[in-house]
């Protein structure tokens, strides 16, 4: 009897492990990127937008519009151009709903990325109103990066990250990895 119980326990554990394994695989197969929900405290810093105007980040994020945020730098050669192409195309797809969402790109290379360069960056990717690009003092930018758990000491080690927050929500959807247009649209629609 003891042996049967032991056997049963082993079988139950094995089934449980198999179930968890299958779940894991399904999750990994379902999305080509990692998606988690996170809570962040937006730091009280003043950044500069693409027109050189000061922006209180907390106030800027205190909005009833959905926010989609990424971290880029103007001379990036690999990840950032694709993130920015994606934002530009997403705005196109929004059509008349353009002003219903705030897209924000924050520089991770503030020494080089002046507001003027950030403006050029937006123009290069066909940005329309509703997509802002922020830079600022190095210390403030580091605070922002740390607050959103994306700080890397060497900017060359940065990784593709997109954060989304729905209207009135406290949690952010954190997406690690590159998104296709349809993935980004699906994630945005999921916020509503």
């Amino acid at each position, binding site marked *: 009897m003891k042996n049967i119980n032991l056997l049963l326990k082993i079988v139950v554990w094995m089934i449980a492990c198999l179930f968890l394994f299958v779940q894991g695989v399904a999750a990994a197969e379902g999305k080509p990127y990692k998606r988690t929900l996170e809570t962040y405290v937006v730091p009280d810093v003043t950044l500069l937008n693409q027109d050189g105007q000061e922006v209180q980040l907390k106030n800027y994020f205190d909005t009833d519009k959905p926010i989609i945020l990424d971290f880029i730098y103007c*001379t990036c050669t690999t990840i950032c151009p*694709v993130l920015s192409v994606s934002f530009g195309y997403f705005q196109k797809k929004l059509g008349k709903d353009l002003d219903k969402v705030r897209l924000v790109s924050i520089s991770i290379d503030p020494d080089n990325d002046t507001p003027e360069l950030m403006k050029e960056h937006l123009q290069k990717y066909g940005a329309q109103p509703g997509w802002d690009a922020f830079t600022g*003092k190095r*210390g403030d930018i580091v605070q922002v990066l740390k607050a959103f758990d994306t700080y890397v000491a060497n900017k060359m080690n940065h990784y*593709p990250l997109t954060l989304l927050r729905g209207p009135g929500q406290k949690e952010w959807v954190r997406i690690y990895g590159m998104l296709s247009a349809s993935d980004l649209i699906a994630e945005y629609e999921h916020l509503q």
Partner: protein
Amino acid sequence: MNVRYIGIFLVLFCLSLQSLGAAELIEGYSRAEALRLGERMYRTGVLPSGEPIKALVMGDIPFDGRMFTCDDCHQRSGLGSKEGTVITWPTNGKELFAPRHRTGAYKPPPAGDKKVSGRGELPEYWQMKEVRPAYTDKSLARVLRVGVDPAGRQLDPIMPKFRLNQSDMRILIFYLKNLSVTLSPGVDATTLQFATVITDDVAEVDKTAMLSVLQAHIDAHNSQSRQESKRAASGPFYKSERHQAYRKLKLHVWVLHGPEETWRDQLEGYYKQQPVFALLGGITGGSWEKMHTFSEEHKIPCIFPITDLPVLSDTDWYTLYFSKGLYQEGESVAKYIRAGNKDVNNLPIVQIFQPDNKRSSALAQGFEQAWKKMGNPAVKNIMIQGDASLSDKQWTDLLAGPDPVVVLVWLDGSHQDVFANLPQHGDRVKMMFASATLLKNDYSVIPDSLKNSFLLSYPYTLQDKNNTTRLSVERWLKVRNIPDSNFTIQAKMYFLGWMLPGSIKNMRSEFFRDYFLEGYDMMIDQDYAIAVYPRLTFGPGQRYASKGCYIARLTEGAAAHLVPVSDWVTH
């Protein structure tokens, strides 16, 4: 007789036909033109027709060549890059058209060379199979269009799928086949040749300061403290590529004499005598323009020359400067006024400068262009010719209008009279700026009554003299018996020498000049080994490593010194 002439004619005719055949045309273009068009596609995303290349990235995001291009990821050299989570493989001819193994570090010798290699190899059953076979024109076109490589693997969707017609595709492939194939000049099996350029207007003490530190670094590299040559001959096979990459460094000193107009010919003469892989350091009292153009036209990297007058360009590639020099000081004053002085922003701004003096003009230009870019009203320029003083009319012009003015005095210490006259107009002047560099850090020209109100642009660190980086450079100099003659110059060259081994190692055995520069592009931002700047930052295509400047004020008392009134100004 006639038959002989006819024979000669026929032979010549055949030979000319043959030579016509040899002049290969690529899609109707000469080789040179096809390479130019291919390079344009690769670097600027523009098709031979002049239209931007169209492509799809991440599977469903359309974009065109104006947004990003091949060389953004694969780099100008074609040797690829690694950024964050994305590894971009080489796309130069010799890598694409050869099989790729799992590791770039170990490439088994060709079958025929096995006996030549004195070292053992992995047994065959341990050797990695090819990850992909060599590309052919056909399979390369396929991967560019649909993202599937010759091994049948689907590439990551971050690699775009390009819409290219047959003709454009052939031109691009022709370009890739010829990209980074032959090693750059200035390198052979044992030695990497470098040169440093010195103009004869530089004081002997400054020349020695620059050269002694640079040569000490070269000597340290050549001392082979890691026994590199021995390891290359007998090291383990899996490290062979790394050890075989070791080269001795040779530094040639190119001194330019006489007027600037003759410098280019002198440079060409030196280069003809000894082609070099790159220029290191160098120093001039004037503009670096002649050397910059020489580097650009010969595609020779020039790393960290010492000059206050670099060439300012968003697109030039081959010279990496410490900063934009005096121009950057002017620019930083504009940024300082915008950032912290809302009450000053709307006041009239007057610049006093000498248009016939390159140093003075660079400051004025830096301020004016930055101020204009910020969308501010035009600046009033008061120009002084030569050593002349400010006329009464110029003083009246300077102070005209109901509002007090902000005065930027971009003059050196020889214009004592202008500085001396300023206190008389103190009530009309809201703020005054000058350049510490232009004044050569000698502030005696500033009247005592204005010493506390003058703000000075200062492009170097303002830390305590006992900061650890400074101490470590001083110690390094002392150990090598190099006298501390001009610490700013020596600290800059110390930094260059400190970075040099990393940028050389980064090339492995791929001695291509573009790849050498890309090593600097990918450097981590530095505040560790640089004693005279708060930090130096790098990035692809960024050619001015120090991006900021302090705005400082003089302290009171006999031993007046500068204290910053701002953070390191970058915006």
